[in-house]
């Protein structure tokens, strides 16, 4: 085995950072972001996709299983929530969301089974089956879509304790709470025994097995939890961002985008999921504005989207060559550099 991602540990310091971020998210952003545009087109999809990226991160960055079917699990979660709301309307929204996640997790376990026998590209193909199968299943059986023939199914409103959360800001708050809870959950898991088992399996599965780590349990656990995160993310994505239920939105392209978030953000870091999601989401926006600003519509929109593909591809190659740990590591390096500069200047304590 050649070089593999090093564990970037989370110290108490980082948890403090996280708390600061949370205060920023809950107390500061609501006051400085006035327009709905920011909520509906940037913050909401960013948080949803970050959550999905955490799911992908768990199975790929932590457990080292090359899986490519995140969007399938997202679709499973989204349609599970739709049907739960439709058929069991008495369930409170948070409970329904949790159950939707669990249903996605069940799919995760089923499609994680091949990971016990195969790895690498073989596993990638096996997980592609989940992607195609889940979308096909939702498309073919009318029950999942409540026999709606129009093709456009509106998602129900989010109602918690009889209070509807329908404005972009209210939805943002709901997502923020869910993302916060699940992120803390994910961070704790990766720092604890579960996460260490995952990383042992990732770094050398045979060695891990001979040290008494059950591959069966560890791998399936990773797939289940990953699918849970993706399922919840997919449900939120459909209910707050898409606001409609359409299987096409969860096609293989979304799976690839989530894969890129994780690769570019940095494998094996939770913060990488957020950074990667922000980058993948914002980059096309920036490129479009740039293209319009400087060339005043002289460049075709299709050309811009092609250039976007090229840039993503080049970035992936460049990161694989120069910094396989992704943007999260770059950010970490930057912090270290600044910190060491300051500690040198003021003679403060040295931190490694």
């Amino acid at each position: 085995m050649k070089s593999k991602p090093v564990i970037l540990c989370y110290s108490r310091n980082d948890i403090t950072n996280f708390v600061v971020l949370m205060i920023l998210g809950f107390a500061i952003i609501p006051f400085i972001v006035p327009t709905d545009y920011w909520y509906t087109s940037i913050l909401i999809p960013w948080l949803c996709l970050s959550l999905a990226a955490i799911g992908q991160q768990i199975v790929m960055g932590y457990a080292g299983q090359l899986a490519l079917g995140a969007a399938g699990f997202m679709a499973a979660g989204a349609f599970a929530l739709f049907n739960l709301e439709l058929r069991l309307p008495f369930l409170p929204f948070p409970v329904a969301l949790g159950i939707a996640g669990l249903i996605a997790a069940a799919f995760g376990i089923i499609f994680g089974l091949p990971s016990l026998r195969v790895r690498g590209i073989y596993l990638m193909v096996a997980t592609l089956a989940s992607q195609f199968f889940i979308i096909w299943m939702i498309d073919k059986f009318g029950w999942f879509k409540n026999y709606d023939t129009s093709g456009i199914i509106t998602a129900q409103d989010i109602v918690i304790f009889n209070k509807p959360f329908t404005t972009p800001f209210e939805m943002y708050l709901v997502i923020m709470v869910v993302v916060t809870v699940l992120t803390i959950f994910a961070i704790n898991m990766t720092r604890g025994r579960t996460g260490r088992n995952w990383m042992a399996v990732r770094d050398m599965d045979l060695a891990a097995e001979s040290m008494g780590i059950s591959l069966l349990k560890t791998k399936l656990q990773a797939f289940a939890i990953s699918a849970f995160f993706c399922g919840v993310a997919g449900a939120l994505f459909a209910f707050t961002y898409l606001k409609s239920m359409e299987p096409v939105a969860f096609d293989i392209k979304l799976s690839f985008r989530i894969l890129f978030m994780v690769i570019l953000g940095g494998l094996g870091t939770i913060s990488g999921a957020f950074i990667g999601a922000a980058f993948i989401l914002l980059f096309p926006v920036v490129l479009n504005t740039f293209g319009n600003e400087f060339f005043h519509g002289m460049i075709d929109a299709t050309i811009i989207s092609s250039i976007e593909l090229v840039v993503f591809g080049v970035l992936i190659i460049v990161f694989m060559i120069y910094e396989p740990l992704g943007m999260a590591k770059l950010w970490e390096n930057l912090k270290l550099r600044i910190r060491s500069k300051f500690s040198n200047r003021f003679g403060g304590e040295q931190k490694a």
Partner: protein
Amino acid sequence: MTEILFFIEVVVAGLLAGTMYSLVALGFVLIYKASATFNFAQGAMVFFAVLSFVGFMELGLPFIGAFFVTILLMGLVGFCTERLVLEPLLNESEDTVLMATIGLGFVLEGLAQAAWGVEVRRLDLGIGDFPIQWIIDSTGLFISALDLTAGVVAAGLILGLSLLFRYTKMGLGLRAVADDAGAASSIGIPLNNIMLMVWTAAGVVALVAGMMWGARAGVQFALVDLALKALPVLIIGGFSSIPGAIVAGLIIGASEKVLEVYIGPYFGGGIEGWAPYVLAIFFLLWRPEGLFGEKIIRRV
């Protein structure tokens, strides 16, 4: 009797469609054999090659001219890939290289679309996608001319490649590199030339596969997704075996059609999309190394 005839027809159509999967899979196998790299960009190469081919034709080049210019272009792509992507990643883990080739795939897709546009092109090879009359007359089977051509072309290509690898100096060098790249380069086999040749060969295969697919479904972005179907083919055939790619392509093609026709209606049809993958999973449980692949032995 007609039912049996219909079954044979389904199987034959499936087998011939399967040769198209084999053609795509062949490109993967070539590169995997030479460098133990799984080239995820092969699907994008198919798209890139055939779109460039059609593009050159539109620029006014004759068929043969466009064909050779495209081959030169694919050689250039291979050269750049070798120098800019694979060499820096020489000692990295397999997964890292795999992800880099995913990136390469996106670069190729983006470049192709930026250069030639996104609209669906028609590719007329002069071979119709309709049944051949004399086969209907003699056996009663409906077999598409295009399918048959694809089968013949695939057979020719495979024969050519096998001969090339077995009887030429280049082929000998390639097999040496595949066996042990370090040892091969230490006895003076030019690694870079071999790689360049392999990538060009993969480019040629991609072009031919793209032309066959393009003639049927139009030259469009969906070709990249079609190429994903080559993945189950590889799993079943094994990554390093050319006969494996062929046999597995035939298996996938035939079983996909048979399943779609006989079992599909019970599920509302459209199972072609995922049936090959599920088939591949069952195959993995039985033979993880594929039909003709080398047994994988891993040690701590």
